[in-house]
């Protein structure tokens, strides 16, 4: 039993890593209606900024704060300068543009820091709590708490503020939003900026474990995409719950089902995702969209 609980806890901790980045994906999708493959790359570059600041002697909190500011500017800048011309065109082209940014950002990070992973300090320390035979690391707990706080803040932003309302309106129908006087251009930049901030929060949360390297989030991004889509793409809470679900189910299947094993356990969340999507195409938490013809 303790083993089972331990596996579930590990799954939640791993899922939190996916969830952190999934939130950023959801935010960009909410703010701009796009899927951004460069989300990981933006997060990595910003995390490297935190790394560089910390290594230059800044206290960790300050380094992270600096990286957050940088991330916001980076996101807004990329939206304005690179993504903007493609936003209303062919969606495939827009996606390929984000792929191009992903490659380019990875290259930039590598240019300055190389590809070899670098250590990053944890905000939460290395201690582990022993709760009746089940071990929970402070780092995992911290990650989960930060995620929960971010989800609450995001819900408040989208549900409770004029800015959030405006961002949703712009993502959904920029033309009508502009006709109501919404500053579409600025809102898109803010949306990307905020998503980029979420990305760097994800980055500094997972960096102590994954280390900082240009490719640190490549595979996390795939899981995060799965979580975002499974969660319904427009629901921050859904994305995080889906990410936890993926983390847990992957662990349990790998440990308990022999034929799956550690090598094929990665297939489990994806197959489950496919089945769920076929039954519920809007995802676990997505709102049902009524189709009228």
């Amino acid at each position, binding site marked *: 039993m303790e083993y089972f609980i331990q596996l579930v806890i590990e799954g939640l901790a791993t899922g939190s890593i996916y969830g952190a980045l999934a939130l950023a994906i959801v935010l960009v999708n909410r703010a701009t209606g796009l899927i951004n493959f460069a989300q990981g790359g933006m997060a990595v570059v910003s995390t490297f900024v935190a790394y560089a600041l910390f290594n230059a002697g800044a206290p960790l909190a300050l380094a992270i704060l600096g990286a957050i500011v940088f991330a916001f500017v980076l996101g807004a800048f990329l939206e304005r300068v690179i993504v903007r011309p493609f936003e209303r065109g062919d969606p*495939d082209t827009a996606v390929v543009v984000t792929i191009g940014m992903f490659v380019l950002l990875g290259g930039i990070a590598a240019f300055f820091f190389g590809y070899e992973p670098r250590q990053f300090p944890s905000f939460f320390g290395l201690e582990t709590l022993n709760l009746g035979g089940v071990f929970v690391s402070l780092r995992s707990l911290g990650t989960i708490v930060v995620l929960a706080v971010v989800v609450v803040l995001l819900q408040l932003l989208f549900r409770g503020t004029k800015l959030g309302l405006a961002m949703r309106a712009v993502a959904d129908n920029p033309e009508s939003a502009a006709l109501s006087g919404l500053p579409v251009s600025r809102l898109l930049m803010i949306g990307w900026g905020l998503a980029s901030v979420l990305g760097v929060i994800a980055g500094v949360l997972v960096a102590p474990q994954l280390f900082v390297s240009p490719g640190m989030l490549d595979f996390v991004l795939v899981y995060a995409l799965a979580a975002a889509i499974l969660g319904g793409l427009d629901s921050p809470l859904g994305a995080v719950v889906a990410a936890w679900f993926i983390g847990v189910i992957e662990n349990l299947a790998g440990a308990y089902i022999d034929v799956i094993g550690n090598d094929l356990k990665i297939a489990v969340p994806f197959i489950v995702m496919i089945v769920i999507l076929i039954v519920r195409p809007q995802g676990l938490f997505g709102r049902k969209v009524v189709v009228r013809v």
Partner: protein
Amino acid sequence: MNNTLAKLAANTWVRIGFAVVVAVVLVVLPLVSSKYVNYQLSLIAVFGVAILGLNIVMGYAGQVSLGQSAFLGLGAYIAAYGVVEGWPIPLIFVLCAVVPAIVGLLVALAAARLRGLALAMVTIALPIIGIPLAKRLREFTGGSQGTTVSWLRAPEWSGLDHDQWRYYVVVAIAVLMFLLARNIVTGRIGRAFRVVKENESVAIAMGVSPYKYKVLAFTIASLFGGVAGFLYLGIVQYTSPETLSFHTSINMVAAMVIGGSASILGTIIGAIYFVFVPNLANQVNPQLTALVSGAVLLAVLFLVPGGIVSLPRRITQAIRAVRRRAGGSPPETPQSPSDRVPAPATTRPKSTEKKNEGKRQGQ
């Protein structure tokens, strides 16, 4: 000027003449080129076929696929297994086409009900699952070390070197696949694809089942992917789990868009881009390949958002614009891309109905 060109292109004899020139170049090229050049040319044919399949499902039918590398890998593995087992090559070829097509069909039967991102995610899962699966099925795949083969060797009578022989085999099959694809996309099926891509409700109203045609598009794409896998093994003579790599899929999507979505010629350009750009990046600086590739990709899209195939149109447009400005005809608001946003002049209004039908945003 454009008109004369168009007229010229419409002339059957000019077309045949052009085809002959292309054919002669394709035939003579390997005889005078080095093994390296032949290898690169052959790779263009290999990935041309794979990207062609991708273009059919994405460019023509409008369904995102981020899993084309899985079918490429599957085809290559089938071919490798067949070669090791000593099966006749025509049989291997047929299996390389049919088995991936069946796998694609099965996946599509389940997935084609999904749209946009959900569909993209299912296709991403293919290479993600395929790689550990390939390692697991070691008896068939050679595990992570892969399978090395030596086949498609030039027969004695041909007097050719192996690289030349392989080039001819691969390019001949690729040409056939391109002709096949052209017939598909210009025919009834291609028209149906376009309707499904444009508007599924309209498709239904016209009696075209979007589901059926999406499944068909996926199946065709998988078949092309499998054939490309066969060709891949013919040229590289080796396959391993890396062949399935998700990055290959992503790069093929990028190459497809760069070359020109929903365009046969664009596919060829895309394949050249796919093979050539890593090479170019290596020449610029082998330590900065990622930086260079990313920059090139973005630069090309900025210059020709419609893909390189639209470059001539883009140039004539630019020339016309310059002329008009010189002629002092009606003033226009500037047309630099960054000014276009709040005024989506030519794009369709994103009405609510449209959105409900096809959530295509951001796949």
